[in-house]
């Protein structure tokens, strides 16, 4: 089993906690209490490695840090994103301002984490409020605007709805696959060496019995 640390960042009330709860508990509340400080949750997913001969799925465990959105909590953020493997930077597609806040987060991550393997995913939430066939379309951030930015910055990009669940699982699935890919390449390049000396930024559960250790025999 692989373990990856993932952190959610973004402006207040864009839906960070709702996304996590949709992913971890598959539930949604219209009004969720404001997050104070931080919350920690975990969830596992399965990855099918198409390139390998193994027919068994690989299990990935996400350790998720959900954070408070208000500006003043920003000073605590380095504690969350320290050693993170992936960051979900969330904005609210009905609030233009939340995109610029998300962009600030992307800059901060790039400046302060300085880890090229850190996967940053830009995530537009509240897609359920943007039904173009309906008069009630509240969209304020055009998909293209965010998409162009994400491409420039080399970020993953999705629009999701925590309320309906649309797209949420896919986000975590594709992040998981990408992290697995990075991990695998890393292990291949360090073939023969002990996995424990693999790159710092990746967490591998090391103290498992070696029979469960995917690094012990497969390569």
């Amino acid at each position, binding site marked *: 089993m692989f*373990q990856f*640390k993932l952190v959610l960042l973004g402006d*207040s*009330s864009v839906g960070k906690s709702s996304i996590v709860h949709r992913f971890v508990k598959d539930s949604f*509340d*219209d*009004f*969720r*209490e*404001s*997050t*104070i*400080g*931080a*919350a*920690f949750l*975990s969830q596992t997913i399965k990855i099918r490695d198409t390139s390998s001969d193994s027919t068994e799925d690989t299990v990935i465990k996400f*350790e998720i840090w959900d954070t*408070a*959105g*208000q*500006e*003043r*909590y920003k*000073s*605590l953020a380095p*504690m*969350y994103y320290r*050693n993170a493997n992936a960051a979900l930077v969330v904005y609210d597609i009905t609030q233009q301002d939340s995109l610029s806040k998300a962009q600030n987060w992307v800059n901060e991550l790039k400046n302060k984490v300085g880890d090229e393997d850190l996967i940053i995913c830009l995530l537009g939430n509240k897609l359920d409020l943007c039904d173009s066939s309906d008069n009630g379309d509240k969209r304020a951030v055009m998909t293209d605007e965010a998409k162009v930015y994400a491409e420039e910055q080399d970020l993953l990009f999705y629009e999701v709805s925590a309320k309906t669940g649309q797209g949420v699982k896919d986000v975590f699935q594709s992040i998981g696959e990408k992290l697995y890919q990075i991990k695998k390449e890393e292990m291949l390049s360090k073939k023969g060496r002990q996995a*424990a*000396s693999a790159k*710092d930024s990746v*967490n*591998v*559960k*090391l*103290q498992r019995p070696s029979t469960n250790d995917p690094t012990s025999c497969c390569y």
Partner: protein
Amino acid sequence: MSVDILRTTEGIEQHKPLMNEGIGVAAEQTESTKVARNSGPRKSPSAPNFHEKTYAGHSMSEPTLLRNCNGDNLLNLGDNLSFNDRDANLSVINLYDDEVISRQMDDFEDNNDEDSQQNVDSDEGNTPTMSMLQNNCNGSETEHLDRYGFKKQNNFITVEEYNKWWKDYSQYCIRRKHKWKLLLAKSGLPMDNDSPNRFPSRSEKLKRYVRKGIPAEWRGNAWWYFARGQEKLTKNKGLYDKLLQKMDDLLKKKKKKKPMQDLDIIERDLNRTFPDNIHFQRETFQLDEPPMIKSLRRVLVAFSLYNPKIGYCQSMNFLAGLLLLFMDEEKAFWMLVIITSRYLPGVHNVNLEGVNVDQGVLMLCVKEYLPEIWPFIAPLHKRSPINLGNSKYNFGKNEFLYRLPPITLCTASWFMSCFVGVLPIETTLRVWDCLFYEESHFLFKASLAILKLSEQTLLKNRPQRVLRHYSLSNGNYHSKDLRINQDESEMEVFQVIQSFPKHLINPNDIFDKVIFKKRVALNRLDQDEIDRCRKYVTTQRQRYKNYNEIVGSNLHHDDDEINDSNAQKNDLLSNGPQDYGSINNENNEEQISGAASDMKVNSNNRIGNDLVNNALSSEVYGFKKSLSGVHWNNSIKEKVRQMRKKRGKDDDVLL
């Protein structure tokens, strides 16, 4: 957003005329809060009635409110009435369930206690309206709610668990209330229709009574009394209304412009405050938002105008929200002022330094009083080197005061919201009872008690961590393995500490198992100790920060740094806004910036203090009563004590 703003303005206009009526009464009758309450204008309209015995007065104020606010439609009227119905269900008659009430009668009759008998009678005499309403409204609608309107069930506790516990605890509450009544009678204090607003003078006995729980329907009054709220209100007559006026003006002016950031964030948090509480919910058929939400908005916005240095900080919504369940708006406002200045100084400030300081203090306390828990929390090794070059300061052992362990991300919220949303409601309220009677050290005591109680769960989840801590401290480890392992076990500990308090449904678990146990070391902790710890940690963090800045930027303006640090420290330690507010000045912002510059002037006089504090900053903080493991030079200690005494006098002169 514009829609929200519009609503805000409506809210104010609706309440304005009433407020103005109310001020005269409140201002003239400073001593008798009772009169102010009965005239009822500022009462949060949907506040539950377990603390509001004079329901007649309450329901009279309600129609007035309706007449004033909207002659426009009947639907709205209906909505508001439906709130009354609900209130009735949560009201005092239902406080301990009917079945329990009858037992209460038996109990009191057995005791043949005149005083309590009277009160039971008067309870009933006072609430015919309520019992009527209750009959109209079938209990099934609200049986999933507790007596404050919160859902009994949540992710951590089932309805069955709740009911099972409540059956006993409600009996306990009745017994305690009976004792309180006797105590009041003995002290010659009036019961005032089961809403006493004066309490016995401080004593060990009263402290024990408070710790065993203040009767729910007295809590608003008791908190107000113990926190000396009336003093504050009397000093600042009319200020709350001025702030509301200012808010009104501001919203009118800003309607078309971009709203202020604080107001915007307040707006987003209103519906995210107790979404599980019926008083904060808007039913789908309601056009207007619940009165409680309007009150919450006014309290929070007024506060952000009153103290721009704090403005609005997420978590204050929960503080204000809980206060509003127990007292009227103006009182809730002043209690919020008192909490954020006296009990939690600096905790909600823009830089959150106060909360970091308190987490440092908590970590020191854990290390001192819960050495068995410390290994779960302590950093296993020093992180990247801080002491670059020739290190003047050796921060080694105190590094955790600056680089706080991850668990503090969790415990920070315990302090910011004073356990609201962290502990189940009845347990939270018991902590609040003690907080207002015993001051802020009780928050630390409660935190330590929770950590102590979590020990078994920690051990179950992570027995090897403790072992590893000791074996690794011998220096025999591979650093990369270690960091990975450390991260992982930190997460596991975090998860335990995060969810453990949510299961503490029975307040007596904390009190009987820890707080009342005389032999438990952490009960030696007192306010003086916490005050000293706070000063120590503040200074340590500042030294560390200064040092990093100096080393980081290769600048050596030591004097400037010290001045800065003093300014910031004073900023943090002074009960600033509390004092500013007492000057009855119209322009609050000017007032505050003025006071801030005064403070800087003062800080120059205090450079000497920094030297004192540096001398005080021994490598390890010395807890007063337990000196085991403390390296403390007694001659320095004595010297420092004298210097502090002198400084204390100087400060008095200065202030």
